[in-house]
């Protein structure tokens, strides 16, 4: 390294840190700009009837109630299907799994599931749930597809939450004669609950925002009435936004931004909820 004078070293430090700061500020500003812009432009379209009425005139007028309900069902379906399996698998990996090839394969599978593109999950759902299992283009097929996609996240967060419970807790319980399962059930799981909930909430937020898989397995733009059974087709917010933004000529601007705002609020409120759960748990433990 060439030896430079102290002054020029100070100067190059100033410049370099300035550049890094600019990069950081850019990320923050762009993120806030996107959110603020959607809030400002979408607020005009928001009204009680927009949230509680079905769309009319090919989505150009009326509200988005069925899409809101559809997204709610999808989140619920994903939670019911992916959370129990995620917790059970997390328990296995943190409490039981021996250090052998099978455990390595399971962990590898989880890492790779997390990286599979969402449209590929769509193809999987189409092939397996819609056609092979004959559920048709339906709420059930879409929930199962989204649950498969959420699995990696619910397993990972459960496993990490369980692993972070100190070993002394388990030892204390075993020492007073509890069985392994009793220890897990009554000592370890309650301690890990905030972490598990955080993961579940994030998985629901993800499911609410996903469009590519449900576009393949059964979301529809306009469905008369609300879904009456899991085998019905459904509307969903992200798919509705995609359609009003790209497929409907003469769509009023206001309406588009309104849909974007509602989607954003649903998705981000769950994100924020997850953050709050995590922060509160961290504060309590310290």
């Amino acid at each position, binding site marked *: 390294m060439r030896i430079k004078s102290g002054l020029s070293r100070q100067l*190059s430090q100033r410049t370099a840190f300035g550049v890094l700061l600019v990069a950081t500020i850019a*990320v923050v500003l762009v993120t806030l700009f996107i959110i603020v812009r959607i809030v400002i432009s979408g607020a005009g379209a928001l009204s009680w009837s927009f949230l509680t009425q079905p769309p009319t005139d090919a989505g150009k007028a009326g509200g988005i109630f069925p899409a809101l309900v559809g997204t709610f069902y999808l989140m619920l379906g994903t939670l019911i299907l992916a959370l129990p399996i995620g917790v059970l*698998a997390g328990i296995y990996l943190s409490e039981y799994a021996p250090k052998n090839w099978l455990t390595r394969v399971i962990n590898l599978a989880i890492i790779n599931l997390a990286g599979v593109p969402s*449209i590929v999950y769509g193809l*999987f759902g189409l092939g397996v749930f819609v056609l092979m299992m004959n559920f048709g283009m339906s709420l059930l097929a879409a929930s199962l597809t989204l649950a498969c996609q959420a699995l990696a996240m619910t397993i990972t967060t459960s496993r990490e939450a369980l692993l972070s419970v100190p070993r002394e807790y388990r030892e204390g319980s075993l020492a007073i004669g509890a069985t392994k*399962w009793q220890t897990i059930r009554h000592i370890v799981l309650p301690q890990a609950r905030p972490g598990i909930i955080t993961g579940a909430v994030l998985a629901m937020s993800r499911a609410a*925002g996903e469009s*590519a898989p449900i576009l393949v397995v059964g979301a529809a733009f306009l469905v008369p009435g609300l879904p009456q059974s899991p085998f019905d087709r459904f509307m969903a917010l992200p798919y509705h936004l995609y359609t009003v933004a790209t497929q409907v000529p003469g769509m009023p601007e206001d309406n588009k931004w309104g849909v974007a705002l509602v989607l954003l609020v649903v998705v981000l409120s769950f994100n924020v909820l997850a953050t709050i759960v995590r922060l509160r748990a961290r504060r309590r433990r310290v």
Partner: protein
Amino acid sequence: MGERVIEGGIFLASLLAIVVLLGIVALLLRQGLPIFSYTPPWAFMFGTRWYPVSEPPTFGITPFFVATLWVTAVATAVAVPVGVGCAAYLSEVARPAIRETVKPVIELLAGLPSVVMGFIGLLLLSPLIQSMFNLNTGLCGLAAGIMLSLMSLPIIVTVSEDALRAIPDEFRQAAYALGATKWEVVRHVSIPAALSGIAAAIMLGIGRAIGETMTVLMIAGGALAVPASPTEPMMPMTSAIASGIGNAVRGGLQYQALFAIGLLLFVMTLAVNLIADRVLERQKRKFAR
């Protein structure tokens, strides 16, 4: 007895991850491979014409493959300097208070759904790009790539920052003891030591960009020609699947061809993720104490 049943159930649940992954592979192979008896793999990969409904149909996916390369290249070119810079700032320079303020914002960015990114790109970015570059349409690979960069930024920042923070402080202190300035420590000690972790972060970002669907479906333009530059409208592999699958006859040639694209996409992202995972594991072991 009851305990045994529960433990059995726990074991079975953990196998489900493998079952789903193998299921995806099996399905993509079963539905996708038959296309190769109609179009040989070579012609499928390097054919430049995608005419699924003409008589006879032709299935060449070079236009989609090249489009994916373009949008991913743009996304990477934007996201890597910004993302690594941001990570270096947060881990090496920023006061804790600033770090704790910026991190939730990055989590917010990670939480924005891809259809919202597509929407913003469609309404705000692509008109801007159209007038800046004097194009016929702002719906092009460049616009899609820029929006994609925002979607791969969070993972690049998070994983790079973790890699930087995992460097033992003794490394930095040794350099300070030799009279290095803070920037010299960052530049010559922290970043080189964390380089493999940063490389893994970049790969994960690339994997994200390759697999992203809605954003490119909405703003990449959807043209079927092989794109010669990022300012042309194009159709990456993900949007080819998304826009074609609704019209494809189940089990027909086009259906098979779309699953074969899905297979290629799966293999590409799998490779990227496996390598990134390997690199991260090795990095973790290097500094484990």
